[in-house]
C-alpha cells in the first residue's frame, strides 16, 4: 500500500513536470526568450516540489501512525493483562500482528484475537489516512506550483537551490552515519572501561587476554583483558604481509609502467587486478587448506616446527591479497609522472634504470607512500584470512612460525561465541575502537607525509 502511494507520488510529480513545462511554454506565447527560466526548469521546479511534499508527508504520517498504533495496542494489552511482564506483552503484540498479516495461521487466545482484529482495523485506517493526506498534499503542491509559474518567475534559481540542498542532504547522511558509528564505538568502549573499573592501563598494556573465562555474573576481570598479545599478532601479520606485498607490488608497477610492452601490459594489468576481485574468504581457505600444509611439510623437511596455523601463512596470503592495491595505485602515480621528466633524463644519457630510480620514483614517492599505508590499513583490518589461518590462542610471540591471534579474530570469536551479547560486546567494542584509532592515526600520518613531499616537489 505504502509502495503504491510512493510510486503514485512519483507519477504525480512527473505529470506536474510536464504540466509546468507546458504552462511555461504557453505563457511565453511563442517568444521563449521572454521567460526568465527555460521551460524545463519550470517543470523541474514543479516536479521537485510535488516530490518533496508527497514523500515528506508520507514519511511523517507513516511514522506518526506507526507510533500511534503501537501506543494503542500496548494500552489495550496492559489493560487486559496488567500482571504480564513487558516482554510477554511485546510477545502478545507481535503475535497479534503476525496473525493480522497472515504470517501466523491461528491463535486460540482471545486477547491475541481481539488485539489482532484491532490492529487490522488500525492498519486500514492508517492506509486510508496516508493515501488521502499524501496524495491530497501532492495535488495541492502541484496546483500551487503551477499557479506560481509566470514569465518572470525564477524557476531555475529555485529548482537549482532545491537540488543543491538535496545533494547536501545526501552528503550529510554519509557524514552522520560516520559520526553515529564513531559515537556508538566511543560509548560502548566507555561502558566496557567502566565495567573493568577504569583500568584502561590493564587493557592497553596487559599481557593476558581471556576476557570471558570465569565470567558468570557479567563481571569482567581487569587482569584478563590485556590486549597486547592481540595487537602484537596483528602487527606481526601485517609486517609479514607488507614484506610480501610492497616489493612485489612496487616492482610490478614499475615493470608495468616503464618496461612492459603495451601487449604485455594489456595482459598483466587485468590479471593483477583480478587478484583484487577474489573474495577474502577464498584467500582464507586457500591459506588454511593449501599454504599451511605445504609450509608445514617444508618446515618438517628442514627440521623446523611449524604450527598448522601460523602468522607466516596468514601474513603471506594477506600480502598476496594486498599486491593489487599497491601495484595498481603505484602504477597510477608512476604513470602520472610527466613524460617530460623522463625525456629530460633520457636526453642526458641516463638509462631506464637510472631514470626510474633517480627521477621517476622520487617524484612518485608521495603516492607510493600513501599506497603502502592504504595497503597497511587493509592488512590491519583484514579478518577472514586470519580467522582461518592465524589461530585463536592469544600467544605473545615474535616467532612467525607460531600461531598468533589478531584483534579482528578475537572480535569475531567474541561476537559469534555463545556468551551473552551484552557481556561479550564490551571487549569487542573496545578492541574495535582501538583498531579504529590506530587506522585513523595511520591515515593522518600518511596524509602528512604526502603533504610534506608534495610541497617539496611541486
Amino acid at each position, binding site marked *: 500500500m505504502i509502495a503504491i502511494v510512493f510510486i503514485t507520488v512519483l507519477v504525480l510529480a512527473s505529470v506536474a513536470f510536464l504540466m509546468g513545462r507546458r504552462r511555461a511554454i504557453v505563457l511565453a506565447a511563442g517568444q521563449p526568450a521572454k521567460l526568465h527560466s527555460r521551460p524545463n526548469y519550470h517543470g523541474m521546479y514543479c516536479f521537485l516540489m510535488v516530490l518533496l511534499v508527497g514523500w515528506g508527508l508520507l514519511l511523517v504520517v507513516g511514522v506518526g501512525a506507526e507510533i500511534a498504533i503501537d501506543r494503542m495496542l500496548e494500552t489495550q494489552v496492559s489493560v487486559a493483562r496488567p500482571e504480564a511482564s513487558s516482554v510477554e506483552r511485546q510477545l502478545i503484540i507481535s503475535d497479534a500482528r503476525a496473525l493480522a498479516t497472515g504470517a501466523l495461521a491461528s491463535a486460540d487466545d482471545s486477547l491475541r484475537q481481539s488485539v489482532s482484529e484491532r490492529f487490522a482495523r488500525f492498519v486500514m485506517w492508517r492506509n486510508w489516512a496516508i493515501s488521502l493526506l499524501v496524495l491530497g498534499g501532492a495535488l495541492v503542491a502541484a496546483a500551487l506550483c503551477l499557479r506560481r509559474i509566470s514569465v518572470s518567475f525564477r524557476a531555475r534559481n529555485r529548482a537549482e537551490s532545491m537540488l543543491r540542498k538535496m545533494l547536501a542532504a545526501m552528503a550529510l547522511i554519509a557524514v552522520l552515519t560516520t559520526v553515529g558509528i564513531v559515537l556508538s564505538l566511543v560509548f560502548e568502549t566507555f561502558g566496557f572501561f567502566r565495567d573493568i573499573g577504569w583500568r584502561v592501563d590493564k587493557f592497553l598494556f596487559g599481557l593476558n587476554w581471556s576476557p570471558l573465562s570465569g565470567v558468570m555474573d557479567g563481571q569482567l576481570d581487569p587482569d584478563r583483558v590485556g590486549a597486547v598479545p592481540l595487537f602484537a599478532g596483528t602487527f606481526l601479520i601485517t609486517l609479514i604481509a607488507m614484506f610480501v606485498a610492497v616489493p612485489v607490488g612496487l616492482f610490478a608497477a614499475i615493470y608495468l609502467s616503464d618496461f612492459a610492452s603495451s601487449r604485455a601490459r594489456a595482459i598483466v594489468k587485468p590479471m593483477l587486478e583480478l587478484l583484487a576481485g577474489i573474495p577474502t574468504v577464498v584467500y582464507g581457505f586457500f591459506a588454511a587448506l593449501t599454504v599451511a600444509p605445504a609450509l608445514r611439510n617444508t618446515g618438517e623437511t628442514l627440521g623446523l616446527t611449524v604450527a598448522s596455523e601460523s602468522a607466516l601463512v596468514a601474513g603471506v596470503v594477506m600480502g598476496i591479497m594486498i599486491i593489487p592495491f599497491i601495484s595498481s595505485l603505484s602504477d597510477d602515480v608512476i604513470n602520472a609522472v610527466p613524460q617530460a*621528466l623522463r*625525456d*629530460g633524463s*633520457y636526453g*642526458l644519457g641516463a638509462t631506464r634504470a637510472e631514470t626510474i630510480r*633517480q627521477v621517476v620514483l*622520487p617524484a612518485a614517492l608521495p603516492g607510493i607512500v600513501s599506497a603502502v599505508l592504504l595497503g597497511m590499513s587493509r592488512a590491519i583490518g583484514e579478518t577472514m584470512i586470519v580467522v582461518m589461518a592465524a589461530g585463536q590462542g592469544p600467544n605473545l610471540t615474535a616467532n612467525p612460525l607460531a600461531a598468533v591471534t589478531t584483534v579482528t579474530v578475537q572480535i569475531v570469536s567474541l561476537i559469534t561465541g555463545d556468551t551473552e551479547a551484552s557481556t561479550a560486546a564490551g571487549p569487542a567494542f573496545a578492541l574495535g575502537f582501538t583498531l579504529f584509532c590506530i587506522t585513523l592515526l595511520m591515515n593522518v600520518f600518511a596524509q602528512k607525509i604526502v603533504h610534506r613531499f608534495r610541497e617539496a*616537489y*611541486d
Partner: protein
Amino acid sequence: MNEIRDVTALKDTKKVKISAQNVQVYYGDNHAIRDVNVDIDDKTVTAFIGPSGCGKSTFLRCLNRMNDTIDICRVTGTILMDGRDIYAPDVDPVLLRARVGMVFQKPNPFPKSIFDNVAYGPRIHGLAANKAELEHIVEKSLKRAALWDEVKDRLSASGTGLSGGQQQRLCIARAIATSPEVLLMDEPASALDPIATAQIEELIDELRSKFSVVIVTHSMQQAARVSQKTAFFHLGSLVEYGETGQIFTNPQDPRTESYITGRIG
C-alpha cells in the same frame, strides 16, 4: 652584428659535425619525414623552421635517438656524427645522448635541488672523480648558462621553485654539464616571456663557441637573430637549407618565400 656573425660562421663551417643522408621517419604507417639530407656544421647555430607538424622536432629527435623511446617510431637512412653512423648496431644510444645534449620546449627540471639537477648527468656518467670536481662542473655549467649569479646562494633549493626562464637556463646548464658536442634545443623559448627569451637567445649565441647548436623554433625572428644556418621544413620534407641571411632575404624555393612572408604555415 649579423654581418660579423656571418663572417665567423663562414670561417667555422669547414667542419661538418652531423651529416644526415636520405633520412626517413615513420610513425606506424605515417611517413613523417621524407628524404632529408642535411649537413650540420660544428660551432654553428643551425635553426630548423617550418609550420607546426612539418617534422622539424621529429628530425631533431633523430639526432640523439630520442625517437628510440617511442615504440612505433622507425628511422631509416644514415646519420653520421664525426663520420660515424649513430644508428649503427654497436652504438649505445645512452652514450650517444651524453654527447648530444637536449633542451626541451617546456622547462623540465627534476624535482631535486638545483645542484642535483646540474650534477645529474656528470654523476650518472662518472665525470667527476670527487665532490670538489663535481662542484666545479656544476659551477662552470651554471656560469655558462648565465644562471650562477642568481642561484649561487641557494643551490640546495628545489629546481622546480625557479621562474620559467631560470628553469630553462637550469635545463641548459644540466645539458651542458655532461660536456656534449652538440646541443639540440626544441623550441627552448616558446614557453617563456620576452625578457627570458632574450636571455636564452643571448646564451645560445655564446654557446656556439663551444658546441654545435641545433634549434627548432616557431619564431622566424628568433631564427634570424640566433642562427647562422637555417633549414626550412614543410610537410615532412626539407625544402631549403642554407645561410640564414640568404634564406630570409633571398629564398630559392617559392614555398620558403611563402612561409617567410606569412602566406603558409
